[in-house]
């Protein structure tokens, strides 16, 4: 029953690390201290064996995927169908990584190290893709999947292929929206719309900021049924136009203008988090809480990963804290 799933999410939400602890972790100076500080939490067991920042990343990914896969166990069939499609974003992320590695002729062992276990999230078996002899075989393997459109395309630029994967993903999610309760659909659609708005905005700013070909940027835009249309976006010519059209995303646009892509990445998640947090849900039992929990899990995963890596790079504490995705005060 969906009520059970939502109640579970409310319960799990309380197990996420509090803001204070995240800030405290960000002020630690050694990776060992970071692992020690997390030893009493849900991360303790997985991190106990970790010796390097790469081990920490792997352990954090494991916990993150565990959390998401647990939700599938409690989901009724129709919601499960939606969640599997929603989780395909990690499968797409994996396929993009494999594609890049195939282009670089990297061995299977190297590819295996960077893959998120998306099969546990209902995704397809990626082993044949990882073992593909080369890039062409990788593309031909896509013909038997939901991404079959890509195998028929004759595109040279891999950015377009990456985008096609994302486009197919979002089309799939919008198609499956009917699987969740009617009352909750608009909220979920709005969040997906914000995601696509931010993606399209970033892509459409490429020619302005980095001199990318406009036609390429045009082909990288994804149809957004819940936000600004491609046609409307393509009418925007300057940074002023962007700021005027998207006042809510000002911080994100300003980060892009300053060419601080890393900050834009953080702002992307902050905007999503703000958007999810500020939505006033009329009922306690609402599917939107499941989506909120998934996003909160991802935010925690990204925050912990960011802390571990910034400790590894010995970044100053104030910079580390600036890298965290925390709700705006």
């Amino acid at each position, binding site marked *: 029953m969906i009520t059970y799933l939502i109640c579970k999410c409310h319960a799990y939400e309380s197990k996420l690390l509090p803001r204070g602890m995240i800030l405290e972790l960000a002020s630690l100076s050694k990776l060992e201290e970071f692992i020690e500080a997390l030893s009493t939490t849900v991360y303790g067991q997985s991190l106990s064996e970790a010796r390097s920042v790469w081990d920490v990343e792997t352990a954090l990914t494991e916990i993150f995927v565990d959390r998401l896969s647990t939700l599938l166990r409690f989901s009724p069939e129709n919601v499960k169908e939606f969640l599997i499609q929603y989780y395909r974003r990690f499968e797409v992320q994996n396929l993009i990584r494999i594609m890049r590695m195939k282009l670089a002729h990297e061995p299977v062992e190297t590819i295996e190290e*960077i893959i998120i276990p998306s099969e546990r999230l209902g995704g397809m078996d990626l082993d044949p893709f990882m073992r593909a002899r080369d890039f062409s075989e990788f593309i031909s393997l896509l013909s038997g999947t939901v991404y079959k459109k890509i195998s028929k395309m004759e595109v040279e630029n891999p950015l377009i292929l*990456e985008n096609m994967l994302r486009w197919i993903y979002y089309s799939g999610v919008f198609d499956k929206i009917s699987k969740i309760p009617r009352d909750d659909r608009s909220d979920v659609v709005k969040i997906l719309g914000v995601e696509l708005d931010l993606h399209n905005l970033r892509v459409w700013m490429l020619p302005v900021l980095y001199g990318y070909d406009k036609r390429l940027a045009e082909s990288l835009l994804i149809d957004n049924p819940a936000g600004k249309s491609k046609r409307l976006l393509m009418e925007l010519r300057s940074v002023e136009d962007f700021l005027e059209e998207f006042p809510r995303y000002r911080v994100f646009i300003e980060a892009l203008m300053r060419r601080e892509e*890393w900050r834009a990445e953080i702002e992307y998640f902050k905007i999503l988090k703000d958007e999810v947090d500020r939505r006033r849900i009329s009922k306690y039992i609402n599917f939107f809480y499941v989506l909120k929990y998934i996003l909160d899990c991802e935010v925690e995963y990204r925050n912990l990963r960011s802390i571990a890596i*910034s400790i590894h790079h010995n970044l100053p504490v104030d*910079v580390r804290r600036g890298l965290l995705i925390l709700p705006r005060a």
Partner: protein
Amino acid sequence: MSLTGVRYTKGFLLDLKRRLEFIKDAHDLLEMKRDQLMIELRKALERFKELRRKVEDEAEEVYRELSLLHSTLGSADLETYSAYLKGRMEVKMIPRSVIGVVIPMLREIHIPDYTNLYPPQIIPLAEKTSTLMKDLAKLAELEAYIENLAEDLRKTNIRVNALEKVVIPSYEETVRRIQGVLDDEMLEEIIRLKQIKEILMRGRTA
């Protein structure tokens, strides 16, 4: 040091003086070269200091950008971004001569193009790294230039010193010695002639 095969003749003295003149000219030229090399070296060192500071700042900026991107995106994404790059960085060099010193000169630095190829997240890092690599190549060129200049300056200095402290003094000493011997011989000749003249005069009066 003394010269070998010295002959105490006027012809040899004239030849020796000519050679000494030539050596002094060569010494002056080498001294001029040394001064010029010093000026060049000083200028190159100034440029090197400036460029090195710039490269250090750029390297720091690249590392900062890389750390921030790594922290934000994670290792896996960052590792895969470079896969789209076609080609490698290539540097073409040709030898060039500056005041007789052969130095390597960068003719062309080819950095693979990433425009229209990279996902947006990585472009600023790619731009910064690209500038750093270009400046690093220029720094290496300048370093090689300074090394070659310094080596040539060292050799020139040794030559100037050798001419100044050993060759020229020994030539001058030999010239002085031959001149002395020839002067003595001439004096002897005059005295001898005087004595003959006296003997002849005495014979006439007797």
